[in-house]
Each structure stands twice: as structure tokens, then as C-alpha cells.
């Protein structure tokens, strides 16, 4: 049974994508994608490297204009207003040349006044309570990504998108990031999580979208997907065979 949004907050769902294509030098990186994401569940987009997952995420968030096709959030085309209700965590965290608290304040100030209590609670939550005044770019990789996540959550997004946020991170940071993502989900945020890590997809994927070579091959419930994948590429991927 799929969860539905009950708090009336996420008017951005469903996400409807139709005929989405993106070419680079005539090479199709995304090939006429049609997809509808309508549940409040955690959606995991997975697939091998080069499948087009990150590109897809960037296009639906409006960071890149598609070559063709249409993206609608709750029936609306992408606009600044729609984008302000979303937040994105990048694979390589983009941290400002400021302190940990300064990075948080920057995000908070864009959405109104700086609430120091809320800021400090978020910093504490991601385990950076002792590093509040430390220059953000001197943090370790895992700490940087946790700060990026806290900063994204400070925006109180209705849709939280994460682009392979835990690739190359230490296990403790991976665990903490997954926990916080789950908390955000319970608080009512729609999660769209891109990963090529199979076990992570099992842990987080209420719904799985499996991509391969710029196409969406499957979109099913997570338990269904891992038990009975429909496509050969997905079967190979799950069984750990190299998918090219």
C-alpha cells in the first residue's frame, strides 16, 4: 500500500515527466522518459554508472534544461517558486567559504530570519556541534556532506533530492545521513534518492526506479523489485554482475 500525503504540504506531488530527452553531441543520455512519481514514499533512483540518474535528477530540479519533454510538479512547470520548495544535496558537497554556522545561516537567511535555535539544533543533529565555528571547508568529507544535508533541511523542503550523497563516505557518516533522511521523510518530506549502491537502495527504496542507458526500465515497489526484477539489466545488477 502506498503512502499518501496527509498533511497537505506536498502539493508538488505527483511529479510527472513526459517525453524527457537529453542529448550530448547527438548521443542520447536520456531517451524519451515517461515517469510519474506519485507516492509519499522514499523513491530511490538506481542503476549503474552512466545510466543518466544524476542527469535526470538535475533536470527535474531545473538545474539543466531538457532537450525535449515536460516536467511538472503537482501540475506546475518548474519555476523559482517550485524550486524553493525543494532542496538538493549534491554528490560533492558545495560548501561556502564560511564557518559551519555561516553555511547554515546563509540558507536560513534566504528563507526569512535566522533562527539560531533551529540552526544549532540542526548542527547538533548532524554531529557537528563541536565544529560550529570551524571553517566548513576544513571539515572531513563525511562531515561536509552532513553539513550539506543539515543546510538542505534548514530550507524545510517538501521534496528532498539527494544525488549519490554517500558515495565515498565513511560508514558512520553513511548511517547518519540515512537516518536523517528517514527523519525528514517521517516529518513529511518526499525523498528522491539517487544511488548506485545496492544495499543502500534496499534500505531506503520504498519505490525503485531502475535506469539503464538513459532509459527507465522499471518502476516498482522496492520489495517487488528486489524479489522479481523484470528486466535483464536489473537482474544482472542485483546479482552483482557487471552491467554495461
Amino acid at each position, binding site marked *: 500500500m502506498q503512502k499518501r500525503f496527509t498533511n497537505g504540504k506536498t502539493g508538488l506531488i505527483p511529479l510527472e515527466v513526459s517525453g524527457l530527452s537529453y542529448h550530448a553531441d547527438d548521443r542520447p543520455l536520456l531517451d524519451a522518459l515517461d515517469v510519474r512519481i506519485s507516492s509519499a514514499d522514499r523513491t530511490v533512483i538506481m542503476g549503474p554508472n552512466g545510466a543518466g540518474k544524476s542527469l535526470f535528477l*538535475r533536470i527535474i530540479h531545473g538545474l539543466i534544461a531538457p532537450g525535449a519533454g515536460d516536467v511538472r510538479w503537482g501540475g506546475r512547470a518548474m519555476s523559482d517558486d517550485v524550486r524553493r520548495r525543494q532542496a538538493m544535496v549534491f554528490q560533492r558537497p*558545495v560548501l561556502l567559504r564560511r564557518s559551519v554556522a555561516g553555511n547554515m545561516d546563509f540558507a536560513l537567511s534566504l528563507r526569512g530570519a535566522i533562527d539560531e535555535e533551529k540552526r544549532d539544533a540542526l548542527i547538533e543533529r548532524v554531529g557537528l556541534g563541536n565544529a560550529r565555528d570551524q571553517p566548513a571547508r576544513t571539515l572531513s568529507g563525511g562531515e561536509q556532506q552532513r553539513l550539506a544535508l543539515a543546510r538542505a533541511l534548514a530550507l524545510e523542503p517538501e521534496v528532498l533530492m539527494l544525488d549519490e550523497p554517500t558515495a565515498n563516505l565513511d560508514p558512520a557518516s553513511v548511517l547518519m545521513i540515512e537516518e536523517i533522511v528517514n527523519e525528514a521523510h517521517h516529518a513529511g518530506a518526499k525523498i528522491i534518492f539517487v544511488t548506485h549502491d545496492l544495499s543502500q537502495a534496499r534500505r531506503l527504496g520504498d519505490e525503485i526506479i531502475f535506469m539503464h542507458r538513459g532509459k527507465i526500465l522499471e518502476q516498482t515497489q522496492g520489495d517487488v523489485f528486489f524479489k522479481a526484477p523484470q528486466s535483464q539489466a536489473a537482474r544482472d545488477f542485483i546479482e552483482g554482475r557487471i552491467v554495461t
Partner: protein
Amino acid sequence: MQDFGNALELAIRLVASGDSDLMEIIALSLRVSLTALLVSAILGFSIGALVATSTFKGRGAIKILLSALMGLPPVVVGLIVYIFLSNAGPLGWTQLLYTPTAMIIAQTLLITPIIGALSTQVIEDIYLEYKDFFTSLAMSRRAVAGALLWDGRYSLLTVALAGFGRAIAEVGAIIIVGGNINHLTRVMTTAIALETSKGDLALAMALGLILIVVSLAINASVIALNLTAKRYAYA
């Protein structure tokens, strides 16, 4: 003609005694160059932020133009400002020729392209890194420019110091539009030029010593800024 040792001794005595003429010249030098720096920084940083974050047509041409203007010969700038401000010129009615304001205008023209070109590069590099994040936040252009200027603060301060170094050491432009008038438009570099030609090496050398100290201080500040920025990973 004094010998070198004699001149140096006199120079040090002048500096140590806080000679009023000397102090007046130093004060005017700093006033002119710092004012020019302030105006150039406002203009140059604005140009930098605008060019670095825009995609308009002719952007490349502006960048090339700025770079080309970085090497403007001071005497030519002086000549152009002179023509505009002279009684027969289009701005003759302002009566600004041979005033500190004219010198400020000349130095501003001289260093704005330097600050503009260098800050465009600085801001462009940071913007490239932040662009996706800023787009994701749906920030206004004003907010983007503000954030980039703040995050580039260490590098931009270095840029400003480079501009100041050029202004304070420059003689060609200000001697033409200022005229090196005693107690009115005489600054360190023009005084050195005059005193040397008169053979009064003591004052020239005293001013020269100050200029060298200023120049060393600028370079030391640049190095200190870079080290601080690196330590904080803000570079």
C-alpha cells in the same frame, strides 16, 4: 649634488622628525590613492560580479577589453583626463584640473580595469563551483552577486591591494593632471620626480623610503591574506 650617504642620512632624519612638508605629501598621496581605490573597488567589483555571472552577448569582448585596459600607460590616461578637464575641454567648466580630484579621477581610470579584470576571474571561479547550488536555492541575482563577493573576500582584497599598489606608485598620470603644485597637488611620486630633477636628493630619498615601505607592506599583506585564506580553506 649630495652624495648618497649624505642624502640617506638626511632622508632618515626627515622621516624621523616628522617633517611637516613630508607628512603633508604623504597624507595627500594616501588620500588620493585610497579614494581612487575605493571608487575603483566599487566599480571593479560590480563589473566583476556582473560579467562573471552573466551570459549576455559581448561578454567575451568586455573581458578582453578589461584585460587590455589593465596595461594602460599612465601618461596616456593623464593626457586624456587633461584634455577633458582643460578649460577648452568638454569638462573644463568643472575647473578640476590641477586639483586632487583630477588626480583621483586619473588613478580611478587607471586601476578600475585592473580590479575589474582580476575580480571577474576570481568571481567566475567561485561561481562555477557554486552555480548549481545557487540555482537550486532559486536565489535572486542580487543575492548571488552578494554571496560571491563575500565568499571571494580574501582574493578580492588581494585584487584591491594590487590596484592600490599600482595607484600609489604611479607618477605619469597625476603629474599631468595634478601639476605637482606645492601644498596642493604634490604627492610622493611627483615630489620624487621634481626633487630629483632639482638635485635635492634628501627629500626625494625620504619619500622613496616611504614608498618602498608602503610597497613592502602591501606585499606582506597579500602574503598574509593568502596564508589566512589557505588556513581557513577559503582560498
